[in-house]
């Protein structure tokens, strides 16, 4: 299981060191990408992010809950090509209810304290993405897949 541990360790390292992720949503076959402040959990099951309810990403989620997130540690210099690591997470988004939002808010703000005012507004939604698969990219081209549901091989 050495590889499983290796992959988990790398994903958790990205979770703890990175603050921003690129979120992909789609509506009517039209893709859209946006930057979100995320928080991942220790067992890799869910990823949280916050968004205003008037945004395009939120409106896309209303019609399609399938999303992908990209988290990476590139530094925007040449060495990224041999050093950088990226993980793409695919999963299903859920807009948290007010009660759930309050329950998860502390965890979210522990990582992003500067967003306290933003997140506490009623027009800001907290979204939880249930991860189904992680695609970890290392060494420029090596791609490993971590399936969160063993039976789901698709």
């Amino acid at each position, binding site marked *: *299981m050495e590889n499983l541990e290796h992959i988990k360790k790398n994903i958790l390292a990205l979770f703890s060191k990175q603050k921003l992720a690129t979120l992909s949503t789609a509506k009517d076959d039209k893709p859209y990408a946006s930057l979100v402040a995320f928080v991942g959990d220790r067992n890799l099951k869910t990823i949280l992010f916050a968004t205003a309810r008037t945004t395009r990403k939120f409106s896309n989620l209303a019609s399609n809950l399938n999303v992908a997130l990209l988290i990476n540690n590139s530094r925007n210099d040449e060495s990224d090509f041999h050093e950088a690591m990226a993980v793409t997470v695919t999963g299903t988004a859920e807009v948290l209810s007010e009660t759930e939002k309050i329950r998860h808010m502390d965890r979210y703000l522990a990582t992003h304290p500067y967003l306290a005012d933003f997140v506490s507004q009623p027009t800001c939604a907290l979204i939880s993405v249930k991860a189904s698969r992680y695609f970890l990219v290392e060494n420029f081209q090596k791609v490993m897949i971590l399936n969160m549901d063993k039976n789901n091989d698709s």
Partner: protein
Amino acid sequence: MILKLKDIQEKDRSLIGGKGYALSILSRYGFNVPRTLFITADVYLDYLKATGLQERILLALHRKNLKEMRWEEVWDTALRIRNMFLTKDLPDKIKSLFSKAIKNEFGDISVVVRSSAPDEDSAAASFAGLHESYVNITGIDNILTHIKLVWASLWSDAALLYRQELGLDVENSSMAVVVQEVISGSASGVIFSKNPNDDSQILIESVHGLNQGLVDGIIEPDRWEIDRNSKTIISHYEAAREQWMMTASDGIRCETLPQEKINAPPINKSQCKTLADTVLKSESVFGSPQDMEWTFRDNKLYILQSRPITTTGTSNTEDKRSWYLSLKKSFDNLQGLRHKIEGHLIPDIIRIAETLKNMNLTGLSDDELSVEIQNRYEINNHWIKVYWDEFIPFAHGVRIFGQFYNDTIRPVDPYEFVDLLKNSRMISLERNRMLEELSAIVQADQNISSTLIAKKYSELGTDFQNKAYAYIEAFGNLSCSVSGGKECEAALETLLTIVLEMSRHNRKKDNKKADNNIKVKEEAFLNHFSEDKRQQAKEYLDLARVSYQLRDDDNIHLERIEAQWRSAVHEGKKRKTLQNKISLSLEKTLSIMPDQIEKPESTTPESTGHYNVKARQLLGQAAGPGIATGTARVFTTRNDLAGFKHGEILICDAVDPTMTFVIPLTAGIVEKRGGMLIHGAIIAREYGIPCVTGVSDVTKYIKTGDTVTVDGYLGIVTLK
């Protein structure tokens, strides 16, 4: 920056490396040093930055963990990096600066281009000989190229591995270059101010001509031991003195020594005395025992370099360095090995296998058979040792040609040279021809085809059966024809299933066309040389072809020997089953024989665990251009061969030469074992099949039945 001898100050030490700095000290203290220029290490870094090579090198190095690479893969990586240096020109600004400085200092005379890496100074490390130096280089463009080659030698296989071994930072090393006037001395050598075996003595080693032959270990030197106090000669060992290293029109050549020099030691007593005085003076200047390289021209002594003796006696580091040094083999060295292999070893192995095969084992008594089994076991072990000691090092013949080719042609693909090596005489290709013949018979004869489909092999005509057995005897399970029995039936079934599959999908190679292509390419290659150099180019190519062919044939020769051991063991086991009693000695011998002999380079597949981790895209090296998608067939044992279907992707730890016959059926090949010159890659190139090698854990992540794409251009394998 370019510095002259007189410009050097203490602060420049880290810029010009220890070797360079020592020369400036020698010059300052009045030692006679050849004219010298220093190209500082920051120029190397500027070049990397300006050309974008830094990240290209690191990408090449990071495809796989260096620690996981076999030595051959490290060599491949080093060759790729070297080719990057060859094909990336110096920026115009650096070029004109160099040209001017070199012209001013040396005019049109030829020079030595030496490495001087700053971390060569670091405490435990001795880099002597690990980086390249080039002697007798003429013409400004040629000199500039060799400066790049010295830089590239920072990334040679030996240098990479040695740095890793010592725990030094591989990625942040840099390289200074020393450019010196060539001193074509009549005698040269090395001198140690303290003999490693006795520190009351000075040790001199000397050869006629240039000292490269001595330093590279090709030419045996005369040796003097001199008392440090009285400076009297204690002993003089006279070498056989057969050859010397001379400057040729470009570079250096090893030549036969003229008669008058064979009889005379390279230096006389008074020159020994001069050397002893000089080395002791150097020792007092540097404050530590010194190891100097020197040469005499017109009886005038020139000091080429001086460095501290890293160790007295043999230390760990010294041992390791010499191992890494052994990775470098010279052309002359390899020619010697070639004569030995072609003239003695190969004829011997064939003759011995034949003699053993013709021996009537059934006529031996139990005790005689017992002795024979042990004898054959020893013979087999002996040849395995020969394989490691002689055949494997001879594979350098291909490598040395690869460098030679790349230096001349500077191709985009550093493995272009392999196309010139293809040789229709390879045994594995002969085997494939026999297979094609069998499949053609099946294709033409509906009856045979139906018999094969029904697996009623006993109903096959004797003519076809004989051909099949002839094949098995020559290339298949070799003990089968001698021992018969179950092993033989299994071998026949494997063979005939493959033949049937081949007859349905005939994939023929146009050998004539391929041969013509090689001729065209060979001509194009040789046309790069002037008349006087063409002979040398031919010699390099010829050596490489022999080396390439042996790389494919050696395992087959070894298998023939092993088969004879196996057949003797089989005879013993048969007696044990059939007779009530066999002699004690035979019983004992059988009990101590291993079940099978570990094959050179064979790897055991790792056990497969239950993962919810899957591979999507695995990284290896592009070893055969092309792209193919198909169903994976994972090979772990030779029995997996029988089920092979046309168009499948062959996934394995290593393509064994004895399994290459399924290659014509495959759509693509993926190997865990890495390297561009391994059997799988060689045969894949022959047939134009996409191939990726050196994929870690490939047999763990890919299962038979998976849909995979082999991208032989990018060196990646993608799972659907």
